[in-house]
């Protein structure tokens, strides 16, 4: 291309999507169709020069940075499949007579909501697949959020200047939890109705405001006909709106502050080493999105989830066993199961038994998680900016505390299945519950001590080698067998 043809600002119409690297002479002479189309937009919107700068933004490349992306992709799939489900779902708690093809329930009195879920599952071709993809994606969503949070916590990515984005993330986690609980309640099957009953009891247990809280939320004394339409609004409008705004904020702050990175490959506190957004990261992320969707579809299509026809419709005078909530609510259910039979009345105010395990303990756990960045900065007097991530062994106290938190979460989650475990282990459920009550105190303490010792030993080993100048053991060498039969170091160029 001749020099004179270039506009002064250096942006040609149509090169928005072209990698900025390399001299212009590498570009083919003829403009492709894609360039022509993009050029048409650029001559009208003039975005190419701005977009081109943004496209060059460097993102560090590490598999652990993809965990948050998987959560984002799951959210996209949830919005897409959820929108489809709303086209069939009726948020109506009024009773109708079931007359669908599922013979066992024919003639039964069910809510219109339950009947609509049954119709979607049995009479809408591929409707069941969409429902199961939605439910499975919700499980993956929380899985991705949990490991993403663990990555952020254990590598110290929450430190200055990222405390704000960490809090945005905690907010997203809570909104996602709200989505999970409201969504689980919508089909109005026996399990979801029982779950609502427990939520009502936990609300009631709050001193002074409990009865008001429950009445305002449910629109009266449980069970109310109107609760489903309220939950529906929360599930498909209020919370998704907040989540979309929150996710956008989360990503905008990430973009603004640039991603953290691990040491190595020349990474320093004052630079970012990685692949540019376009094409490297866009291609990888797009590929990951489709692979995530593929795996979820496969699992959701082959492994049954939430078969509401087996649970039956919700009636307030029936409960069933075993009844476990979705995995991300298991810790709350477990806390209630381990709760102590104590309801003290202090100055005329009774503290009902679900208050401590259902409100106080979750509140303290989430509060501690949210405040940890500030707590750690205060304890360590470290108020510097950090863009390089810590390997977990470098910070034994943080790592041990996080591990103890994970231990509490695991014990509570397992306790949520104490009845199932009792059957599996052939023990009385009372024994299993007592063991879990004991473990809830013991497991975090032991975990803290063991992880602290392990991390400290590894750290001391590194420091000793650094001090005495002894080299660490050489890293493992990956040998690759070439086409000629010989071996070579994978790191070397062939």
């Amino acid at each position, binding site marked *: 291309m001749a020099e004179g043809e270039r506009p002064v600002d250096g942006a040609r119409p149509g090169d928005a999507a072209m990698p900025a690297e390399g001299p212009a002479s590498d570009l083919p002479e003829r403009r492709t169709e894609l360039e022509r189309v993009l050029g048409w937009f650029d001559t009208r919107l003039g975005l190419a020069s701005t977009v081109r700068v943004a496209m060059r933004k460097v993102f560090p490349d590490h598999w652990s940075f993809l965990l948050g992306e998987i959560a984002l992709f799951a959210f996209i799939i949830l919005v897409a499949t959820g929108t489809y489900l709303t086209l069939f779902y009726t948020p109506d708690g009024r009773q109708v007579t079931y007359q669908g093809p599922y013979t066992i329930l024919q003639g039964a009195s069910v809510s219109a909501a339950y009947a609509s879920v049954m119709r979607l599952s049995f009479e809408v071709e591929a409707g069941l*697949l969409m429902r199961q993809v939605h439910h499975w994606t919700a499980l993956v969503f929380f899985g991705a959020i949990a490991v993403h949070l663990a990555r952020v916590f254990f590598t110290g990515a929450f430190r200055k200047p990222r405390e704000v984005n960490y809090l945005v993330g905690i907010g997203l986690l809570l909104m996602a939890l709200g989505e999970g609980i409201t969504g689980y309640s919508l089909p109005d099957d026996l399990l979801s109705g*029982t779950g609502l*009953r427990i939520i009502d009891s936990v609300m009631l247990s709050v001193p002074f405001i409990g009865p*008001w809280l429950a009445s305002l939320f449910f629109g009266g004394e449980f069970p109310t006909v109107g609760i489903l339409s309220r939950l529906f609004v929360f599930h498909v409008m209020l919370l998704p709106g907040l989540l979309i705004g929150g996710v956008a904020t989360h990503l905008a702050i990430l973009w603004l502050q640039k991603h953290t990175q691990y040491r190595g490959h020349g990474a320093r506190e004052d630079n970012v080493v990685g692949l540019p957004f376009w094409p490297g990261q866009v291609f990888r992320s797009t*590929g990951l999105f*489709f692979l995530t969707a593929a795996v979820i579809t496969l699992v959701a299509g082959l492994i049954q989830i939430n078969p509401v026809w087996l649970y039956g419709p919700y009636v307030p005078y029936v409960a069933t066993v075993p009844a476990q909530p979705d995995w991300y609510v298991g810790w709350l*259910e477990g806390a*209630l199961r381990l*709760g102590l039979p104590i309801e003290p009345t202090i100055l005329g105010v009774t503290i009902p038994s679900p208050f401590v395990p259902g409100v106080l303990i979750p509140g303290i756990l989430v509060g501690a998680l949210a405040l940890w960045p500030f707590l750690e900065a205060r304890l360590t007097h470290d108020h510097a900016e950090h863009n390089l991530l810590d390997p977990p062994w470098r910070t034994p106290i943080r790592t041990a505390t996080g591990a103890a938190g994970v231990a509490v979460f695991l014990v509570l989650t397992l306790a949520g299945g104490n009845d199932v475990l009792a059957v599996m282990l052939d023990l009385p459920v009372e024994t299993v519950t007592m063991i879990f009550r004991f473990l809830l105190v013991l497991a975090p303490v032991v975990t803290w001590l063991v992880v602290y010792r392990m991390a400290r030993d590894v750290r001391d080993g590194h420091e000793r080698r650094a001090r005495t100048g002894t080299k660490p053991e050489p890293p493992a060498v990956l040998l690759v067998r070439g086409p000629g039969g010989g071996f070579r170091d994978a790191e070397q160029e062939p």
Partner: protein
Amino acid sequence: MNHPSPDTRRAERRIALSFGVSMVSGFALLGVYLAGGQTQVEAVLLAISLGGIGAGIIVWSQRLLPNDLHVEPRHPAADPASTAVRDIVAEERAITRRSLLIRALGGAFAGLAAALAIPVLSLGPAPGRSLFQTPWRRGLRMVGLDGQPIKASDVPVGGIVTGFPEGVPGSADGQTLLIRVGPGLLRLAADRMAWAPDGYVAYSKLCTHAGCPVGLYRSVEHRLICPCHQSTFDVLDGAQPVFGPASRPLPQLPIRIEADGTIVALGDFTDTVGPGFWNMHDG
């Protein structure tokens, strides 16, 4: 342009194959749907269709795109010496009695918040007495789900039925367990023994922990177990909790057996039914 290497050619073939498989699978899915549909087959085909695109793009990015590392400088979010924040605040410094006005504005917002609480309070009725009461009244007969009176003879020794106040079958807070135990087994307080004639005793079915229906009965041990959180109640001992998170007994319904065998309530339950709340003992 350079001639592509054999590696590049191979990668291109693999990517094209991946996309091709995806395309075939997508059209096959359409065919399956039109032919009547089959959920599992549709899922597998959809997964292949999505996965083919994903795998192709990943190979594309790994094999055909430049993967050399780039370095970009970072800058602190704000210069510590910057006066931007102070400048912004200073823009409205002209006001003289600023703290007074800010306090007044705070007060105005508090008033507005109080005003906006009204629509929130309209979301549900004031709790009132409803939590303390059930539909049970003196003289109401116990009925089954079908609304027909339950007869004492319907319940064998060791048996259990769920009953409701007459006229409200399916009542959520009036649901009651009528249990019949062997003669002489009940160890109720003296004033309650009369409410459990001939080994028939009636308790609220709502768990006093989290309000689940206490639906499991181990008749040999005479224990009621809540399936939700395993609170366990001793039927013989006034449904006192013996295990689990519930701390209060299931309230007892005083009953009498009429000459025709129907069960009649002598009043409402002995205590507030279901989950606790802060002023539950004021009832």
